[in-house]
Structure formats: structure tokens, C-alpha cells
């Protein structure tokens, strides 16, 4: 694979970024690194969702896969002493199995559009309820923590939260892996098949595309990526809760992040993660700092950022349905043609 | 002043111009047919008159009232009722519910019972099937229901779009009888048809449309005798 020079520069910049952060914000580097790490981890998860979302398979259930990734890994570590090095692959297998179990019959029955979205919504609720129901292990709705191993830095336990520099490079590698998967899919024959069936399933079937099989493949891959992302996220946060890593709310965040960035292009979901993280952090800082708003709303001021987030999402979908990157690219193309 | 007047009307879909510089008039109490080949713009013409498709240019008026400035749902209140191509009944509503929707205009609601009696008198079959879902009836019955629905608003002018499409020959004959009947009852009728001989036998006048233009017009007997119609549409 030939590397585009622009990508090489971008990659070099990403490698240099943590050092730059350390140099520029010597006292508060942990905080800034934390934001960037979260961004990268969510970017990988959004990319995983967009892998199938871009072909018209809109799942509202990917919170189930991140949840399974996180919980299976942590449960195996906490209760069976199994290293996440094995636990994460097991979690991925479980997530893929669920994806196939739900995907196969629904693709066979041609459940699409609204119905597919609502079906996957039921799936994520089922998974969340199971997590809450198994509270003896999972801590119920309060969540739980992976047992700390030594000083919190361990390859064996896949724990790296204590050192933000290591954590950054782990997150970068995870994100990069996600991007590579995207590129592989983008350059494969499957992409054409999926694009065809995304537009017209009957026509795609008529020209010999195995619709169910193609959909299953991309669904399994997407679930695997999100489970992997969920597991790493749990290892980084050192906390898992049904509402932070599983459930309907998480699903919606994934979908919106990806859609805001643009699901049709490689870096769309990543830009979506950048945008949503910066937005919520920025708004939070702004609102916490505002004396007037604090006087008006007290601690409730924090929900203002969600409010603005909601408004922006609506505006995005009405006015920029292709997302930030998609719209920018379209504008750029028109501009180039015009000049 | 004629009841319905069109002057230089143009209309189309996207870049495609389906109607070009159409001028025509319908007088009170007349029945007028618009004939022409497939794609001549007949359906488009009716859609423009009832406001379903905005005209791109020209003047359109009903009893002197400008139709172009009216939104589609206001056209019915000028007295123009449109029986669309393929009937477009509400399939999972009963016959009587369909008829009731024909009387949706507040002015028509008050006279609902009286008009319902008139329609049932015209189509006894509809009365027998009044509680049946419209979508479960035969093609001919559905056409009756569609015409009945249009009559429910108490219109002055009825636009009929290919009422004979997909019907058995016997039923087609009944439909044309009906056209004569409602004209005799005082309604003005503008009908679009491909069944040239049969429609020309029941209407007073006709326009021949070809590729979006009026090619010929006149009394139906004259049109029927004309070379253009005989050659192209009757294959003589």
C-alpha cells in the first residue's frame, strides 16, 4: 500500500502530538492527553459503526457490542483471572456471535430501515438489562472496575491508564487499526456489492450479489471493531457502567458522532469524534467558567452542553446530512470545478 | 367568458417540457374531451388545471378566478373536481368513507346526506358495497367510486383522467354512458381518453393533443371525420 504524503505528514503529527502537548501544557498535560485519548478511542468505535452505517445498515444497537467488549473482558479478568490478551479476543467472538445471531435472521427477513433500527435498539436494551441483571458480577447499574494489576501499567493485564503517554500510543494504534480496516473494506470488491445493495437490494440480488452474506460480513466486522474499542475503552477508563459503555444512550452517541462527521468518508467518523469531544469539553469549560450561567442554573449548568449538542445534531441532519467531512469535500469539489 | 380558460400554458417535469403553449376553453354545461397518444401530455394537462403540477407559464382561470396563484388544495373550492388517473381511492377505507372524504370541504359537509343520495342514485352498486373497503372492489366499481367521490364536493367542472383504463369493454361502455348522464345532470365535463371513438361519441367537443401541443380542436363529429384522427388513432 502506497502512503499518500499528506497521510504520512498527518501520521507524523499524531506521533508528535503528545510531546507537543507535554511541551505546551506542562502542568495540565494529563487532562489534554485524556481528551485526545478519548477522542481516538471513540473515533475507532465510530469508524466501526460507520463501516456498516454507510451502506444503509443503520444500527441503534452498537452499544451492545461496545458493552460486550468491555464487560466480557473485565468479567473474565476479574472472576476467571484470564488476561485481556485472551479476554479481548473472546469478547470479540461473543460480540460477533451476537451480531450474526441478530443479523442473519433479520437480513433473511429483509428487516430494513426503521425496523432494523428498532430491532437493534431492542438488542442493545436486552444486553444492557442482562448486564444490570447479572449484578452479582457486574455491579448492576452502578458499574464496576477491572481489578488493578500491580502499579496499573502491565502488558499482561492490558492496563495502561496510569501512564498517559503509553495510553496515548495504545489509543493511536487502536484508532489506526480501525482506519486500516476501513481502507481494506473501501478497496475490496465487497464495497461495491455493499454500495449496490445499499441503494437497491432487489437489483443487487438480481445481478448475483449474495445480499445476506455481504451484509453479514460487514455486520460482523463492525461488531468486532466496536467490541474491541469497548474493551480498550474499559481498560483505559478502568471503570465500566451499563450507561457509559452499553445501552441505548451509548448507541445514539455512536450514531450521532459518526453522522456528524460524515459516514461516507474514511476520516468522517474521526472528525465526528473530534467534533463531539471538543464541543462537549469546550462547552463544559465555558459553562463552568460562566458566573452568570452558574448563578442561574447552579450545577445543572452542565446539561447545557447536551442541550446545545442536541440542537446541533438536529441542524446537522437537516442542513448537512453528509456530515462535516462530506459537506466540506462536496464544497471543495464544487469550488474546484467552478474556478 | 368561458368557464375554464387556458392561455399559452406551459408545464413540465424538471427539464422536460410536457405541455407547450396550450390554449383552450371549456364552456358551462359542455362536455369536452382531450384525446391524443400516450405521452401527448393529457394527464399533465389535467394535473396543471387542478394545481397538482404548477404551470411554468401562461394563464389559467376558472370562472375568471386565477388558478395559478392557488395552492392545490384550494382548487377544489373553485368548483373543479379531479378524478385522477388510476383512481387513487383510499384502499383501506370503505366506499362510504371515501365518499365522505370527497365532501371534506366545509361547504360540502353540510350537504353531505343529499349528495350521498345523489351519488347512490347514480351508482346503486356503491350503495350495496358502502361498507366494503374500496381496494377490494372490481375496477369498474372503483371507477364509479372515484367519480362519485369527485361528485360529493358538488363541483361545477369534473376532470376525468382515462376513466376507461383497465376496464372490461362492457364496463367501459357503462363509464361513457355515465359521462353523458352527469353532463345531462348539469355538470361540465373535461375528459382525457385514449378510447377515441367511444369518447367522441359522448362529448360535444374535443381537443387533439400531440407532443404537448394542441394539434386540432372542434366538434367531436368533425374530429372523428378528420383525416388526422382517422389515420393516427383509428387506423383507417
Amino acid at each position, binding site marked *: 500500500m502506497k502512503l499518500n504524503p499528506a497521510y504520512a505528514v498527518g501520521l507524523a503529527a499524531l506521533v508528535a502530538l503528545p510531546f507537543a502537548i507535554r511541551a505546551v501544557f506542562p502542568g495540565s498535560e494529563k487532562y489534554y492527553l485524556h481528551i485526545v485519548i478519548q477522542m481516538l478511542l471513540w473515533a475507532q468505535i465510530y469508524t466501526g459503526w460507520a463501516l456498516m452505517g454507510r451502506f*444503509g445498515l*443503520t444500527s441503534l444497537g452498537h452499544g451492545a457490542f461496545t458493552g460486550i467488549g468491555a464487560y466480557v473482558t473485565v468479567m473474565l479478568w476479574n472472576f476467571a483471572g484470564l488476561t485481556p490478551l485472551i479476554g479481548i479476543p473472546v469478547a470479540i467472538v461473543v460480540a460477533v456471535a451476537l451480531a450474526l445471531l441478530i443479523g442473519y*435472521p433479520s437480513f433473511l*427477513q429483509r*428487516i430494513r*430501515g*426503521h*425496523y432494523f*433500527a*428498532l*430491532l437493534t*435498539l*431492542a*438488542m442493545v436494551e*436486552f444486553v444492557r*438489562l*442482562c448486564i444490570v*441483571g447479572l449484578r452479582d458480577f457486574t455491579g448492576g447499574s452502578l458499574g464496576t472496575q477491572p481489578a488493578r494489576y500491580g502499579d496499573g501499567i502491565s502488558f499482561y493485564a492490558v492496563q495502561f491508564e496510569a501512564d498517559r503517554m503509553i495510553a496515548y500510543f495504545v489509543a493511536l494504534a487502536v484508532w489506526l487499526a480501525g482506519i486500516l480496516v476501513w481502507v481494506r473494506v473501501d478497496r475490496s470488491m465487497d464495497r461495491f456489492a455493499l454500495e449496490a445493495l445499499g441503494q437497491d437490494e432487489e437489483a443487487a440480488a438480481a445481478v448475483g450479489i449474495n445480499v445476506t452474506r455481504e451484509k453479514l460480513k460487514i455486520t460482523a466486522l463492525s461488531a468486532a471493531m466496536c467490541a474491541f474499542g469497548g474493551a480498550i475503552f474499559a481498560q483505559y477508563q478502568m471503570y465500566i457502567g451499563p450507561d457509559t459503555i452499553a445501552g*441505548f*444512550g451509548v448507541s*445514539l452517541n455512536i*450514531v*450521532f458522532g459518526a*453522522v456528524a462527521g460524515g459516514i461516507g468518508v474514511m476520516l468522517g467518523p474521526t472528525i465526528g469524534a473530534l467534533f463531539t469531544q471538543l464541543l462537549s469539553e469546550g462547552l463544559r469549560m465555558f459553562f463552568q467558567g460562566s458566573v452568570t450561567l452558574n448563578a442561574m*442554573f447552579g450545577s*445543572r449548568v452542565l446539561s*447545557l*452542553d*447536551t*442541550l446545545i*449538542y*442536541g440542537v446541533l*445534531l*438536529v441542524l*446537522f*441532519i*437537516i442542513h448537512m*446530512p453528509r456530515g462535516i467531512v462530506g459537506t466540506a469535500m462536496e464544497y471543495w469539489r464544487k469550488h474546484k470545478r467552478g474556478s | 367568458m368561458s368557464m375554464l380558460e387556458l392561455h399559452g400554458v406551459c408545464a413540465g417535469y424538471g427539464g422536460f417540457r410536457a405541455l407547450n403553449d396550450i390554449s383552450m376553453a371549456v364552456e358551462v354545461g359542455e362536455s369536452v374531451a382531450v384525446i391524443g397518444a400516450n405521452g401527448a401530455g393529457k394527464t399533465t394537462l389535467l394535473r396543471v388545471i387542478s*394545481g*397538482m403540477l404548477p404551470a411554468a407559464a401562461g394563464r389559467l382561470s376558472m370562472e375568471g378566478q386565477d388558478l395559478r396563484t392557488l*395552492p*392545490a*388544495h384550494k*382548487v377544489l373550492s373553485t368548483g373543479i*373536481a*379531479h378524478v*385522477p388517473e388510476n383512481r*387513487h381511492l*383510499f384502499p383501506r*377505507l370503505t366506499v362510504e*368513507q371515501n365518499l365522505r*372524504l*370527497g365532501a*371534506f*370541504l366545509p361547504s*360540502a*359537509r353540510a350537504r353531505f346526506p343529499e349528495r350521498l343520495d345523489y351519488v347512490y342514485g347514480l351508482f346503486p352498486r356503491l350503495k350495496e358495497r358502502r361498507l366494503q373497503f374500496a381496494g377490494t372492489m372490481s375496477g369498474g366499481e372503483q371507477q364509479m367510486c372515484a367519480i362519485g*367521490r*369527485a361528485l360529493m*364536493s358538488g363541483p361545477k367542472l369534473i376532470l376525468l383522467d382515462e376513466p376507461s383504463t383497465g376496464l372490461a369493454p362492457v364496463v367501459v361502455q357503462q363509464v361513457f354512458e355515465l359521462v353523458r348522464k352527469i353532463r345531462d345532470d348539469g355538470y361540465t365535463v373535461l375528459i382525457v381518453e385514449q378510447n377515441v371513438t367511444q369518447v367522441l361519441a359522448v362529448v360535444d367537443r374535443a381537443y387533439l393533443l400531440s407532443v404537448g401541443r394542441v394539434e386540432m380542436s372542434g366538434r367531436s363529429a368533425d374530429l372523428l371525420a378528420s383525416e388526422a384522427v382517422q389515420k393516427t388513432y383509428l387506423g383507417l
Partner: protein
Amino acid sequence: MTCSLDIFFLEAVLNGILLAGLLALLSLGLNLVFGVVDVVWICYAELVMIGMYAIFFAYSTLDLPLPLAMLIGITFTALLGVALHMIVIRPLLDAAPINQLLATGGVLFLLQAAATLAFGIEFRNIGVHLGSASLGDMFFSWGRIITFSVALATMLGLRYFLRHSYLGLAILALSQDRHVMPLMGADSRRLYAATSALGGGLAGLGAALMVLQFDIYPQIGLQFGPLIFMVCVLGGLGNMLGGFVAALVIAQFITIGSSCFATEWGYAIAFLFFILMMFIRPQGLLGARS
């Protein structure tokens, strides 16, 4: 609690029937909008939540009589329904269905945040306790009994309205053929707005019944929202009788499951049942196979 065919089981079954009333009522408005406008209001449960807060505010803060407070709540959500349609749905009427769904998801966040901003995350309760009725050794809360009765009456009322009034018929007709409506002299835009008002108002009615039984908090919509969608889809789109049957079935899974195991398991079983039914009968419980 053990699961056996004793009086507890019977009580669970009867309570399930009463719970079904609430679910059926809540799904009614969503079903109407889903069936007529062909849009899923993912934020429907949040409309209910806002309605609950509106009633709470009018009753507990403004000290208005409860029926008036409920009326205010219903009016408020009806207006919200219209606003939702005009501001969010109308620009997206011809967009991909999934974009409509996502846009209402944005509204979900917005409404939750607005509620938090105004009332905080504390649990609120209007503090009206209606007590329980006893039947032999079994107890049923009056709140549930009233809810069930109102749900039944509303369903019949809505059915009558849709079949016998001009506006109702036009709304039904709109769901079957939206393009021909102008030929009936009906303005589709106004009919959509009316449908949305009705959908929103039904959410408000649901809220008025829920405040009798439940605490109010900003996240409550996420708790029962997915359940309402299930009832709607399982009943078959726009099929109100189907919705009622689906509500009965789902509620039985929940109450029996909850009384045999724990509450979450009752819900989990209900969701599992829904998923399986989607595979077996994608057209809904009562739908005919097309």
C-alpha cells in the same frame, strides 16, 4: 419470590393486564404518527417526560388543581408535537427515513437536557397517592386501574374519531395516499400538523397517567421509550388493536418475569421475545403477511 401458580401469579397476571393499559396508551400516539406521517419519533418517550414535568410544575409549583395541571401538560405536549413536526420533520419529509429518525434523536438529547436544566436530576413526585383496591387477597393500585380504563376509553375514542369525523378520516386517508389529498380539498401540511398535535397530546395524556404511578426524572424516557417502540412494531404499524394485543403480551412478560426473577429479567425476556417475534412475524402480531 418463587414462580408458582398461586395467588401471586394471578396477581402478577392481572397487574400485567393493568400495565398493558399504560403501554397501549403510550404507544397510541407514536403509532398514529408512525402510521400517518411515516416517521419514528425516537424522542416520543421524552415528550411524555416533558409532559410529566409540566404537570408536576403546574400542580406542585403553581398549586393548580390536578385536572387543570394535567390539561396544561397535555396542551403543552400537543404544542411540542406540532413544533417538532414543523421545525424538525417538515424539512426532512423527503429525506431518508433514517435521517428523520436521527433528527428526532437529537431532539431526545435536547429535551432531556432541557428537563435537567429546569428541574435537575432529582426524582420528583407529585405526591398524590390513590391507594389500592383489594380483590380477595390481591391488591391493585387505583393508579393502574384508572390508567387502564383511560387507555381503553382513549383507544375507543380515537378509533371513533378516526372513522367518523372529517378530520379523523382525512388523517386516515393521508396515511394511505398522501398525494391525492389536495384533490379532496385538504391541505396535507395542516393534516400533518394536526396529526402531530394529536400524537403529542396523547403523549401528554400518557404523562398525566404516569405521574400518578411513577417518579419523574430526566432519564425516565430512556427507561420505557424502547418498550413503547416494541409495542408499536409488534402490534403492526398503525394497527391500534394490534398495539393493544402487543401491549398485553409484552406486559405479561414483564410482570410475570419480574415476579419470578428480578425486574430487569422481566424486561430482558420481553425484549428477547420482541426480537424473536420480529424474525418470525416481521409484519407484527396481527398483521397479514404481504
